[in-house]
Every structure is written in structure tokens, then in C-alpha cells.
């Protein structure tokens, strides 16, 4: 009875809707055909944007599913009425679907590894980064094996041991030996990973400084939504800062009473010499940001009120990397990885890794943070002989010495 009602009401309604839908699409098609003579293409953009289009499409799908559902029901009822066994063996269907999912899924994983896996970051461009990559590859191999094996077991068992009225499950509540084995094996594998990870971690963060190869200090300060880079100048030391000294002319709050600060230089991009250790000093003015330089496997949050350090050694120049990646536009970047406000998604700076000589030329061209306004503000004597764009580092050194002497005389 209800079936008949359904047929009279819903199917007719469904048919009506479907016919209307087809009628409409054919109208569009005709329009398109008609329009083809005059204009090459009808703009469907507006239609794809209208919500009603998608709502109707979804309702049509729902209707389709409802019709299939009813058809299955009718089939099952008719089998029942004829006294035949239940029409559809859903257990078998799901078991097969799991088996299919396993095969298609494993292929999907393979596809992802090869296609998307080929779109990833190039090999690490820093010394410690190579260790991280090695660690990563080892973990990837182990986890992939476990992933594939456990999934084969999971979906394989689901397929093999599907329900059958003739069979009874095997009563097997526990087996302490097996359980011990699969406690100990993961524990051993993880011990290896932990040890390797721990040693790598230590080698990254606990470095003994080589007095002959002192790292280049670079201070990076984050704020919403930009980075400021400070090079140490001739003395090789980034000077003191105090946030209370922040003004419009001294946005970083550099304390120029500190002699080390006076020769500190500003830079628009981070240029570093290849093969020389760099010690990043990371600070923040306002909220927490994260200094993220993925090509070098470097990341550390910048936290207001804290100075944190990350030491690394770049191993490949930008030019080498451009060749390696076959991309002439390749650039090293660092950017923000910690949510920091509306501009979080666009907070980047370019990093250039260059030869020692190129670096020397470049650094000599950079301006100091200390300018005439700041001199007045800090009651420092006037500027020494201008050292504008002198590419000779010796001249610059002498300038630095002069500044120091002046400060001493004060």
C-alpha cells in the first residue's frame, strides 16, 4: 500500500523534477548551440556561482539515492514474498569493498608518494638538515612498511573473515607470547628512533663553538607583519636592545649606549656566506611569530621578551640550488609559521646564500641602524667621516674603530 502510494506520489514527483531538470539543461544546450553561431561560448559562470544550482543538484542526488534505496527495498521485499533467501548479502559487499579499498588505496598511496612526493622541498641546504633528512627517510621507511602491512591485515581480515552462518568464530581471548612480541618489537624500533632523534637533536642545539670558525651573528626581529634583520657590523657582535627605547625612529629599540650596537647594520634580505656557521638570534616585538626557513630545516618561534638562538651552516648557494632544482627563479625564503594576525599569510623575506667574496661586497654596502636622528636622541657626537658605499671593508673597519673611539672619548 505504502509502496503504491510512493509510486503514485514520489516517483511522479521525481520524474517531474528530473524531466524539468533535463528540459532545462537541454534549454541551456540549445542556448549554447544557438549562441555558438554568434558568440563562441556561453558564460556559465553566473550559474555555477548561484547557490540554488548546487542546492538543486544536491536534491537531485538525494532523490536519486532515495529511488535506489526504494528499488533495493522492493527487490528485498519481493524475494521475501517469494520465500527466497535474503536478496543482497551486504556482508559480502562490504568485504569486497574493503578489499577494493585496500587495492585502490594502496595505489593511491603509491601515486601520492610519487606525484606529490616529487613536489616537496629539495634536499636540505644545511649541515644539520642532512641529518634531519636522513632521520626523516628512516622514519618514512619504517612507518610506510607498518602502514602497508597493518592495512593489508586490517582489510584482508575484513575480507576473509566476513560473516557466514555456517561458521563460528575462533574463540581466542589472548596469547601472552604474541602480545609480548608485539609490545617488545615496537618498543625496540622506537628505541632506535628515539636514540637517533635524541642525538640529532643534541647535535643541533648543543654545539661547541669553534674559536677559529666563529659563527656569523644575525639578529631577526619579528613584528606584525614583517621581519627586521640586524647584522653585527665590524665587531661581529649584535648589540643590546631594550624594548623601552622603541620610537618611530628606532623601531627595534636598539640601545646605542652599547658600543656593540653602533655599527650594527640593517638589511632588506638575509645574505649569508656558504659554508660558514650562522647563529640566528631571534626576537619578537609584539606577539609570537615563528621564524621558519624550511630549505635549511630551521624553525624556532620568536617570543617577545626572549632571545632564542639557532645555529646552522648553509651548504649550497642560491645559484647551486637553482641548478639543482632546475628552476632559475628559485629563492630561499624565511617566513612566519605561527599564527600572528591577519597578515600571517604574507610575512616573508628572501635569503641569499652566496660565496664569501660576494658576501663581503654585499655587507660593505649595508647601512648602519645608527643615523643622525638617533645620534641626537642618544646624545652621541655627530657622524664620523661618511663611509657611504665604500666597498672596502678595511675602510669600514676603521670607521667602526672611529665610532668606538668617539664613544670612548665621550
Amino acid at each position, binding site marked *: 500500500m505504502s509502496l503504491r502510494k510512493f509510486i503514485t506520489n514520489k516517483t511522479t514527483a521525481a520524474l517531474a523534477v528530473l524531466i524539468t531538470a533535463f528540459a532545462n539543461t537541454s534549454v541551456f544546450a540549445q542556448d549554447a548551440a544557438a549562441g555558438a553561431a554568434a558568440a563562441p561560448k556561453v558564460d556559465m559562470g553566473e550559474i555555477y556561482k548561484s547557490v540554488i544550482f548546487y542546492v538543486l543538484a544536491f536534491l537531485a542526488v538525494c532523490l536519486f539515492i532515495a529511488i535506489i534505496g526504494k528499488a533495493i527495498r522492493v527487490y528485498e521485499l519481493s524475494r521475501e514474498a517469494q520465500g527466497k533467501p535474503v536478496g543482497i548479502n551486504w556482508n559480502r559487499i562490504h568485504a569486497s569493498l574493503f578489499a577494493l579499498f585496500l587495492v585502490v588505496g594502496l595505489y593511491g598511496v603509491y601515486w601520492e608518494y610519487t606525484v606529490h612526493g616529487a613536489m616537496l622541498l629539495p634536499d636540505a641546504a644545511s649541515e644539520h638538515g642532512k641529518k634531519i633528512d636522513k632521520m626523516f627517510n628512516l622514519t618514512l621507511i619504517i612507518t610506510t612498511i607498518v602502514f602497508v602491512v597493518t592495512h593489508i591485515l586490517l582489510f584482508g581480515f575484513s575480507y576473509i573473515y566476513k560473516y557466514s552462518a555456517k561458521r563460528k568464530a575462533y574463540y581466542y581471548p589472548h596469547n601472552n607470547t604474541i602480545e609480548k612480541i608485539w609490545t617488545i618489537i615496537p618498543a625496540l624500533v622506537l628505541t632506535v628512533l628515539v636514540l637517533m632523534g635524541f642525538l640529532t637533536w643534541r647535535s643541533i642545539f648543543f654545539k661547541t663553538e669553534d674559536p677559529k670558525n666563529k659563527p656569523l651573528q644575525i639578529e631577526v626581529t619579528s613584528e606584525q607583519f614583517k621581519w627586521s634583520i640586524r647584522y653585527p657590523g665590524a665587531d661581529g657582535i649584535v648589540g643590546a636592545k631594550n624594548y623601552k627605547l622603541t620610537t618611530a625612529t628606532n623601531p627595534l629599540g636598539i640601545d646605542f649606549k652599547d658600543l656593540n650596537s653602533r655599527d650594527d647594520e640593517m638589511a632588506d634580505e638575509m645574505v649569508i656566506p656558504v659554508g660558514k656557521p650562522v647563529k640566528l638570534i631571534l626576537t619578537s616585538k609584539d606577539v609570537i611569530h615563528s621564524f621558519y626557513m624550511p630549505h635549511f630545516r630551521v624553525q624556532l618561534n620568536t617570543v617577545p621578551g626572549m632571545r632564542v638562538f639557532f645555529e646552522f651552516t648553509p651548504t649550497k648557494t642560491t645559484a647551486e640550488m637553482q641548478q639543482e632544482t632546475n628552476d632559475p627563479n628559485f629563492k630561499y625564503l624565511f617566513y612566519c609559521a605561527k599564527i600572528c594576525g591577519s597578515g600571517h*599569510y604574507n610575512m616573508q623575506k628572501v635569503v641569499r646564500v652566496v660565496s664569501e667574496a660576494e658576501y663581503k661586497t654585499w655587507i660593505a654596502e649595508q647601512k648602519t641602524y645608527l643615523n643622525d636622528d638617533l645620534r641626537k636622541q642618544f646624545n652621541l657626537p655627530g657622524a664620523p667621516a661618511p663611509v657611504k658605499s665604500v666597498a672596502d671593508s678595511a675602510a669600514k673597519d676603521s670607521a667602526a674603530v672611529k665610532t668606538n673611539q668617539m664613544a670612548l672619548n665621550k
Partner: protein
Amino acid sequence: MSTIALHDEHNHDHADHGHHKETLISKYIFSMDHKMIAKQFLITGIIMAVIAMGLSILFRIQLAWPDKNFPFLETFLGKWAEGGRIKPDFYLALVTIHGTIMVFFVLTAGLSGTFSNLLIPLQVGARDMASPFLNMLSYWFFFLACVVMMSSFFIQTGPASGGWTVYPPLSVVAKAMPGSGLGMTLWLVSMVLFVASSLMGGINYVSTILNMRTKGMDLWKMPLTIWAFFLTAILGILSFPVLVAGVVLMVFDRSFGTSFYLSDIVIGTDILPNEGGSPILWQHLFWFLGHPEVYIVIMPALGISSEVISVNSRKPIFGYHAMVYSLIGITVLSFIVWGHHMFVTGMNPLLGGVFMITTLIIAVPSAVKTFNYLATLWRGNIRFTPAMLFAIGLVSFFISGGLTGIFLGNASLDINLHDTYFVVAHFHLVMGSAAIFGMLAGVYHWFPKMFGKMMNAKLGYLHFWLTFIAAYLVFFPLHFLGLDGVPRRYYAFTEFEFMKKWLTVNVFVTWAAIMAALAQVAFLFNFFYSIFKGKVSPQNPWEANTLEWTAPVEHLHGNWPGEIPTVYRWPYDYSKPGHDADFIPQTVPFSQTMSSNLPHDFEGNEEAEKIQQEWELANPVAENKG
């Protein structure tokens, strides 16, 4: 809000067996019956889940088509999507509220709240919770928390938008972003209400399990669901207060000028007076809750799937004791791993090394659980009910998400993966997929117990397959974005040359997410339709052993009409050799199953063993049992 609308139609029945007159209000709104409170939790949880899913679709649209306009967005969102494009600040609000709702309101309250409330009294054999009044308060605090959280969408400056972890100073300094104004205050108020709710619930669960078990139900006869809820409640009781402490300090910082989390801050050129605090302190307090919280989310799901897998494989869960011990192991370890969220936050690197060790140790009990699930399926007789499908899906997601956790738990690898899409993919596999699947498995399995009706199985099948496939399509590719160094919470990928190659992947992921969202319509329709029009449930629809299926289908206050049944055996006697049926409920004494008793069953009770031996001598045929 919904509970009123949903239930007022069928309050005409039930009047016959209420021992005191129940009004609409006392029965459906301020109910103290654990079964009703469970339904309230579930339906509120489902509504919040739908809202949070909707939010996720909104920001997925922005990610997939960052330079297209969608006029309908302006219709719904007004000034937050002027010209049909979501604004960056609102984008961040969307991800923040999506995360908060999903983690706290759906996967904590919606999952634990629903199933602990429903199952603890029914499975341990109690008439109700230890304190029904506290239980009612627990729901209403949760409801208030939801209302307060949602109200932040209706204020001028918009909801909190500093990410669900609300790291200060971003969340504390109102000038840092619009969402850190009133929206953040509402977030904090909501969170305090939520924690109060969760504590009241947790204390109730623990005391009920410890004190109100029926005769014969010793701890080692409890189903794994109860063990999971028990340990989850303990985790919550010990960790949530720490969050409140952190939240109170944050309220002080925001509203009363203290400096617990603030120091040395300059917004533009405006120097803030705060001195001496540390933003890292918040991270410690937050993650001291936050990490146990993810186990609060996953453990009930694991408990539910243990039960569902055992029932539908028609096999005892493999290694019951190992399952319990690994849950205990996870519980204990989860308190000493929080630092793995902070490897690169400037925490002392020495601590990072220690936290890495503890973190990777926690993978061992998780691995044991996985292998035990697989062993349970082995040589089972698997019935693919919708609940079973979701439980198998859970195991798959738990494996996938667990394995990616090994990368992130390794401090060295975390340097480059921290705060990238790899993290997003990882926790969406374990929380967003595995825990949600556990919850759905629970809903399909215990729907007959909750509403006395059956859900439509075929719609359940459709729901499972669409969701299972779509969830993998959404979250698997995201790992690769993370491995390419794409950070999370980016409003658009347009500003970076290297991210542009991921735009097509983003479009694909968004379509998969829309498919997953639409698949939930099958569930929602099935759920609400079956409440009213579903087939009436038989007494024990899944032929399960646990105690709740001995309670009458028609709900009554106090659960069992006569005496509470006594428990004689563990809950997993499925397909026991020698017994004619493939299940023996916990209430069946060994004297009625002489043909299937094993020496182990008597736990060293010599008299019982003697009786069994005598019986076996008298019935030699029984030796040939199958």
C-alpha cells in the same frame, strides 16, 4: 535549544511507568535521568559538529578559490565577507572556532558526555549516576558554554581568532587583532563553563564506576568501554583544572592589567607596561591539559570500537588485559608528553629531548592496541553493521594518524614540520577522523538503546563509505603540503610562488571536504528520522553480552524494572566452544553453561572446578564439542 523542539511531540507516552509525575520540563529539559542527559549531550554535540563542519567548509572555500568572489557568503556573513570574499581576520576566527568546537564541544562533551552518561550506569548495572543532579548541571553548563561560544559570532569585533590554542600575547593584547577583544573574553568565559561541566561529569563517572557496580561486576569484568570512560574521566579531572588556572591568569592579564604572560611588548611604537611574564607559561599550562585532552578525545573512541569490534567479529576482544593496561599506560604517559607541542617554541632544548623520549614511548601502548584489534578480527565471523564499518574505519585512521605522529614526536623532525599542514593532516586523522568515527560507531551501535528504535542500515552504509573515502581524500594529500613547508592557518597561498603548485590540490581537497560534509546529510536524516519513524528495536539487536541489553527497550527511570541483574562472567564470551549460541551474556551463570566452561573461568574457585569436573565426567559427550 534543539532538545525542546525535538522531543515535545512524543511526550504523551511513558506516563504509565513513571513513578512520579513527570512534566515536559522535568523529563526533557531539566532531566536528571542519565539516559536523557546522554541524548541531550549527543544532540547538542551533533548540532555543534554540524556548525563546526560548516565553518570548515567556509574556510576550505577560501583556500581553494582565494581570488574568486562568492556573493552568497556576503549574504550570510555580511561585513566579514564583503564582496563575497572572506576577510583574513574572519578566516582566522573560522579556524579558531572550528578547532575549539570540534575538540571541546564535539569530541569531549559530545563523545564522553554522551556515551559515559548512557553506558556507565547501564553497563556496570546502576540505576543512575552517583549524582543525577550534578549530572544535569554538567549538561547545562555545557549548553551554556556552547551558547556563549556561538554568541561571539554576533558581536562587532567577531569571535576569538588566535587559533584554538589562543597563545598570548596575540590573544591577550586587544590591539593585536580584532578577535582578541570581546570575542576572546567570551571564549574564556565559555571555556570556564565548559571545564566546570566536564569536571562535574568526570567526578560523576569515576564515582559511579567505583561505587555503584552491580553484584559480581568486579573491575576485571567491566567492558572496555567502561575502562576507557573511567580512565578518560580521571584524565579530565586531573588536567582540566590546569586549563582553568591558565584561563584565570589570562583573564587577569586581559582585564586587570597583570603580566603573567606578557613582557617586553611593543605594538607599533606603543610600549606596553607589562613586565616579567612569559608567553611560554601559557603554553605549558595549556598543553598540560592539551595533550591529555587529545587522549580524552581518542580513548572513549577506542573503548567504543573495542566493544563494537568484539561484538561484530563474534570474538572476544584479543588481550583484554593488555587492552586495559595499554589504556592505563596511555593515561599515565599522557601527562608527561605535553612538551612535544613546544619543541620549537623556545623551550630549553634539553627539555625537548626528554619530551621526545616520553612521547615516542606512548606509541608502544597505542601499537599494542592496534595489533590487538587486528588479532580480534583474525578468524572472526564479521558482521558489517554500520557501527562495525565505522569501527574498522577508526582502526585504519588510528594507524595512519598514529604513524604520522612518530614523525612529529621526533623533536628533530618537528623542527621542519611544526605548524605546517603535516600537523593538520596528522591530528585530523587521529582526532578529526578516528575519534569522530568512534563516535559515529557508538551512535549506530547504541542508537537502539538510546531511542528504542533502529537506524536504517543502508543509509548507514552509504554514510560510512562516502565519509571514509572523503576523509582520506581530504587529509592524506595535506601531509605533502606540510612536507613542502606550507604553514597552517594561511589565509591564502597566493603570496608565495612555491605554494601556487598546491592550489589545485587545495581545490581537490575542498571538493572532497564538501563531499564529506554532504555525506553527513545521510547520517543526520537517518538519525532524526529514525528517532520518530525507525523500526522498533528488539531487546538485543546485536546479540551482545553486555548488561545494557538486558534493560528493557522502553526507557524507565532506574533502568531495570526489578532487581539489577547480577554479573557472572566477563563481557566477551563470544563464540565460546561448546555453547550453542555464539554469545553468552554477562548475566548467565556458569551453572547454565556447563558445556562451554573453561578451567580459567573459575578464577581458582576450587569448589566450582570440582563441580565442573564432576559434570564433565557425567557428560562425556561434551568432550566432542565443536
